C-alpha cells in the first residue's frame, strides 16, 4: 500500500502540521519507505493473539477520585504564550 500526495496532505491536516507543497513529495517518499518496511508484519498469522498494549502486561492501578492538588493557577499559567488574567488566550474561534 502506497500513500499518494492527497493522503499525505490529509495526514498532515489530521496531525495539525502545516506542510508546504514542496515538502509533500519528500514526505511521501519517506513515509512510504517506513510503511514499506513495516509491511513485513503482514506475513505473521496473528489469529487468536491478544494484543499487548502495555510495557509489562500489567493491570492498571486505580486511585481514589479525590483532589490531590490545586490552587496553583500561577504555576499553570507561568508558561502560557499568551494569557488574559487567569485564562489562556487564543485566537478567536467563533465569529
Amino acid at each position, binding site marked *: 500500500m502506497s500513500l499518494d500526495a492527497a493522503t499525505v496532505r490529509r495526514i498532515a491536516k489530521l496531525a495539525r502540521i502545516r506542510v508546504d507543497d514542496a515538502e509533500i513529495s519528500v514526505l511521501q517518499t519517506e513515509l512510504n519507505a517506513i*510503511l514499506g518496511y513495516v509491511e513485513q508484519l503482514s506475513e505473521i498469522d496473528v489469529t487468536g493473539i491478544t494484543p499487548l498494549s502495555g510495557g509489562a502486561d500489567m493491570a492498571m492501578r486505580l*486511585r481514589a477520585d479525590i483532589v490531590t492538588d490545586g490552587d496553583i493557577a500561577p504555576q*499553570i499559567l507561568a508558561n502560557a504564550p499568551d494569557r488574559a488574567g487567569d485564562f489562556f488566550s487564543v485566537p478567536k*474561534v467563533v465569529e
Partner: protein
Amino acid sequence: MTIAEAAKHLAARDFTATELAAAHNDAIAALNPRLNAYITTTPELALTQAKAADARIAAGTAQPLTGIPLAIKDLFCTAGVRTTAASKILAPFIPPYESHVTQNLLDAGVVYLGKANLDEFAMGSSNITSGYGPVENPWKRAGSDAKLVPGGSSGGSAAAVAARLAMGATGTDTGGSIRQPAAFTGIAGIKPTYGRCSRFGIIAFASSLDQAGPMARTVEDCAILLGAMAGFDARDSTSANRPVPDYRAAVTRGVKGLAIGIPAEYRMDGMSPEIAALWDKGISWLRDQGAEIIDISLPHTKYGLAVYYIVAPAEASSNLARYDGVRFGARVHGEDLIDMYERTRAAGFGAEVKRRIMIGTYVLSAGYYDAYYLRAQKIRALILRDFTDAFTRVDAILTPTAPSAAFGLGEKMDDPVTMYLNDVFTVPAPLAGVPAMSIPAGLNAEGLPLGLQIIGRHFDEETVFAVAGALEHAAGFTAKPALRAA
C-alpha cells in the same frame, strides 16, 4: 574516578563537593562548546547544591550520591530550570515541577551540572535530530579527526559521561536510547524494567515503552544511581509498587550456576565479524566464571523494529498533540485557531518528529488502525512470549548492543529506515518491558568502543547487574576517549 570512589574521597574529606562541582564546571566550560553535550549548563546551581552537599557530609547525613555531579537528560522536568526535550517548540519552557526520578536524586544530594542534549523528543539514534545542534562523540577513529555521532537519543548524557563532563547521567530508553549511546561512547547504561522508575515529569514520547535509567562509567555506578532513581510513585499509574533491591550488592554476586541464553536470531546476516567475535568473547568470559551457556531462540526478533516503528509513532502522535502553542511552549500566530496550531507545530517540530507524528497519525486513522496498530500490538505480544518462554530456561540473555560502532556525522542519513536499523538489537527489550543493560566490552580495529547487552527477567535487574559485573571484570575495559577532561 568513579562515583563510588568519589563518594569515598568526599567522606574522607580528601576534597569537597564544592571543589568537585567547580572542577566539572571548568571542564564543561572548556569542552562543551565543542562537544555540545549540554543544552543548558547550570554552574551556579551546581555550586549551591554542592555547598548543601558539603553541609550534609559535615553533618554525617550523607548518602552514596551526596555531592556527586550529574548531567540530567533534558527530557526530565527540573523545577525552575529550562527543559526543552531538544525541541524548538519547548525553547521557552521552564517547568514548575520536578520529575519523580530527579526529585529522588535531589533527595539523595546530587549536584546538577546541566541539562544534557538529546534527539528531539528522544526520537533518534544519533543525536542529530536535536533542535540545539548535534553532539560530537568524544571518541575518534584511530588517525582520524572525523566527527562521529554519540548515538541517541541520550547522546548528550553519553558524551558528557564519557568525556568526564559528568560522573553519571540520567537517560531514558524507548527503543535503545540509553543502551546504544552507552555502547557508542564506551560507558555503561541500564534500562530497568518498565514500571521500575516513575515516568512522572519525564516528557512523554511513547508511554508504553519509555523508561528512565542511569548512565555511568562503571556497572557499580549504574547500580548506585538506579538504586536512588527507582521506586514507587502514585502519580504514574504504571509505576511498580515493589521494594527497590540492593543493586550495588548484586554487582559482585557472580554468575556461577546462572544459565545464560544466546539467541540465534541476533546473529544476523552481515553482522560485523568484530562484533560477532566480541560476542563470542563475552560468552567465554561468562562460561569461565561458571555460567552455563544455552542456545535459545527468540523467533520474532526480526519483527521488533517494524512493531516499534508503528507502536512508538502511534503513541508519540497522541502524546505530542499537547504542543499546540496554547498552554506552554512557543507559539506562531495564525489567522484562526487551527492555523495557529498548524503554524506553531510546523515551526516548532523538526523533520524526524514530524515524520513520526504523521506515521502515528496514519496508523491510528480510521480504516488503518486494525491493519497497522492492532496487528503491531499482537506481534508485540508474541515478542513478549518469546522472552517469557526463554526465561523458563535461562536467567539472562547476552547479545551485542548495536550492529556497528559509532558512525560518522552525515553517514546513514540517506533515508529514515537505514537509521532505524541501528536499533535492531535494542528494541525487543522495551517492547517486552524487560530490563536490559549495555556495558563497554572492547574496541574495534579503529579503536572505537563496542558494547555487549544483557537482558533479564521482569524486575530482575539484580541478575542483569550480576552478569554485567562479571563481564566488566573480565573485559577490563580501561580505554578512554580522545576528547576528555583530565
